[in-house]
């Protein structure tokens, strides 16, 4: 079975900004290992000569002309904001120092 530890999941949860309890981390580590086992044959399916497909239908050079379109009013922009001040989005401190 794939080796996925609680610490691995804790790191992933930190990268993904999802707070998890130790119990959740343990449960997730087990589930993740199972899923990874189920999907890992994918890594042996294609040789190095097979190109990757990131778009199902290949298009290129889709551009927009540099012409000003619509904007939201600050009221619309901030209408869903959990917290705001002076027409700006308000967030708690970024650093926890000092």
């Amino acid at each position, binding site marked *: 079975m794939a080796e996925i530890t609680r610490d691995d999941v804790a790191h992933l949860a*930190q990268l993904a900004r*999802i707070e998890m309890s130790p119990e959740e981390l343990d449960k997730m580590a087990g*589930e993740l290992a199972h899923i990874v086992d189920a999907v890992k044959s994918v890594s042996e399916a*294609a040789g190095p000569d097979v190109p990757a497909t*990131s778009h199902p239908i290949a*298009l290129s050079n889709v551009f927009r002309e540099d012409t000003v379109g619509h904007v939201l009013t600050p009221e619309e922009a901030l209408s869903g*904001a959990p917290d705001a001040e002076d027409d700006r989005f308000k967030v708690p*401190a970024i650093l926890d120092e000092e």
Partner: protein
Amino acid sequence: MNELITSTAAQLAEKLSAKEVSSEEVAQAHLDRIGEVDGGERGVHAFLHVNSEEALAVAREVDAIRAAGGDDAAALHPLAGVPIAIKDLIVTVGQPTTAGSRILEGWMSPYDATVIKKIRAAKLPILGKTNLDEFAMGSSTEHSAFGPTRNPWDLDRIPGGSGGGSAAAVAAFEAPLALGTDTGGSIRQPGAVTGTVGVKPTYGAVSRYGAIAMASSLDQIGPVSRSVLDAALLQELIGGHDPFDSTSLTDPFDTLVAAARNGSVEGLRIGVVKELGGEGYQAGVEARFRDAVELLRGAGAQVVEVSCPNFKYALGAYYLIMPSEVSSNLAKFDGVRYGLRVLPKDGPLTIERVMGATRAAGFGDEAKRRIILGTYALSAGYYDAYYGSAQKVRTLIQRDFDAAFAQADVLISPTAPTTAFKLGEKLDDPLAMYLNDVATIPANLAGVPGLSLPGGLADEDGLPVGIQLLAPAREDARLYRVGAALESLLEAQWGGPLLAKAPVLGGVK
């Protein structure tokens, strides 16, 4: 049941333009039906929000235009006045959009999705927003933060997912039409298990602008209906090039309705995909599938077997690509600009911790599972083995399709391996849940269009079975031509639509 709610969209459109009924009556009949069967302990619970006032206002507007006659009446879209339900993954001004998640509960979009703009322009009254697995992640609609939707065929069973709300609404005659989104089968699999029609168009045939992204390279908006013709009418309305979506195709998709009106399979080569059957497929599903193939053969189609050997990697590739894109697409839900904000219970109040607490409280288990899986698949040291390899599998699957379509004009398979299972049955087994999409996923990986239509009832449980048709990219019309033919062959056998056999819900009239 009231004929206004059992009619197809095409039938309603005719009655409306002939002024046999008013749009207001039609909208009201559907709102009444929603009131009758959707709520309560054992309700279908297809809707998260019902938009009565606006729907009726639009209906009255259509009636007024028709009554006035002249150019404006002549210019009305054929579906003007035919009500529609919208999967709550698609943003709408004036109604909340939740994506089935606590993290967006109560959020009001300041803009309309492109498909909604088209629907408003065509004046289809929007009945409301339908339930779904949170952020479209699931195959049963049980992962909705607002409770599951029930299958109108058996209220203890799942309606499929993620678009279980849209499929159930249409199956329960709460709406003649609905919009769904299909990332790995979320239109087609609910269609299969509810006895309705669902189409995933060619990737890029319908604008994704305003569909809350789950997996950008797989997502596609499509029609949910009770007939192949209705689906064609709706896809033609919502499709077409959109400059707001860089992956939107410029090809015209304007022959779909004509194709659906001229169903035929005479001389067509139909490919049975060897890998989409056998182990894991319910006996009753396979039996109905074989019947359908025989019907097509009897109608003059040439049936060939095709092999798509790399389809065995499709589920694995899907469960790497999809969660990877999910992990990035769902990062924006962080409690800063909109939606839920939850403060950490203790410790220092920093934005990092607020984001962590918000996402912990706002996302359900399945969303978290996929975000963590995707974060893992993209992280340093794993990318090549997982995400990179999965993208290569995509190439192999496209090559399989190319080879298969060299032998066959259309491919055919069961839509889902089983009929509707019991609510709760697979909730604790993610891998078992994921297997529901095994037959639908290859189309998303390759970008080709897929249509699911009712194929009858499984002998062992009397529940609907779905038949899936697949066509080459951009050949959506071919699906409608074959789908309409198969539908009429089947309905001739049944003596009417399959849904006529569904149990009667609500108060019997």
